[in-house]
């Protein structure tokens, strides 16, 4: 179970390969990459700055991964989240999960993303032609996280 907060880009393929490398119990690897879109709320994004709360961020992500491990039958999980200045098409986040079977891999990967979106202390500020503004939280993200609270 690994969590990285970094300004540097990451090689998703290499990270995913390393997560399952040599483990013959792994039958399923689910992963998610979040990237910077150039359009948000109809304004063209030129630059995005990702800020976080050092000290809490690592703990919050580790707690989310632990919760995923408690809920789902997974073998390993990785979260990499970038901070600092990002531009359209840049990678923001990678979540990868290995498991014996795909159901748990998919569930855990999505669970981690949904919780990360609502519980990990990251904030996006974007620069477009109108200036800089903090990105608003999305109600859809709260709803996505809330779905994990009720029996499915």
């Amino acid at each position: 179970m690994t969590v990285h907060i970094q300004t540097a880009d990451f090689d998703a393929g290499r990270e995913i390969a390393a997560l399952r490398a040599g483990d013959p119990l792994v039958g399923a690897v689910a992963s998610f990459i979040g990237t910077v879109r150039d359009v948000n709320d109809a304004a063209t994004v030129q630059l995005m700055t990702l800020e976080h709360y050092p000290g809490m961020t690592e703990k919050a992500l580790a707690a989310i991964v632990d919760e995923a491990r408690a809920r789902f039958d997974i073998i390993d999980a990785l979260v990499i989240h970038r901070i600092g200045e990002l531009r359209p098409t840049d990678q923001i986040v990678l979540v990868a999960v290995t498991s014996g079977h795909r159901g748990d891999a998919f569930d855990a990967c999505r669970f981690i993303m949904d919780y990360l979106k609502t519980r990990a202390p990251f904030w996006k500020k974007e620069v477009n032609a109108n200036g800089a503004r903090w990105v608003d939280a999305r109600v859809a993200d709260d709803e996505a996280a809330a779905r994990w609270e009720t029996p499915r």
Partner: protein
Amino acid sequence: MPESPPAVIAAVTVRVVYLARLREAFGMSGEKLELARGPPTVAAVLATLRARGGAWDQELAGGRAVRVALNHQLVPAEALVADGDEVALLPPVTGG
């Protein structure tokens, strides 16, 4: 005096951290804050700050979705704070 002295209530001083939009609205990334009176809770921290008026009152109004992390853990407003604790005020998060 014949009466016994009142129980000493130690003053509680916390480190408050302002993040993202709040840091900009308050013009600072944090400060030391002494809680004046009453039970030392997260709610007391917020009330002390709101009493300053202006941006403080506006940003921390009940309807605004500010969450609080006590020593890096999200907590409800009733949570008790202790001397030296770090109390961070978080706007709704937008990572991922």
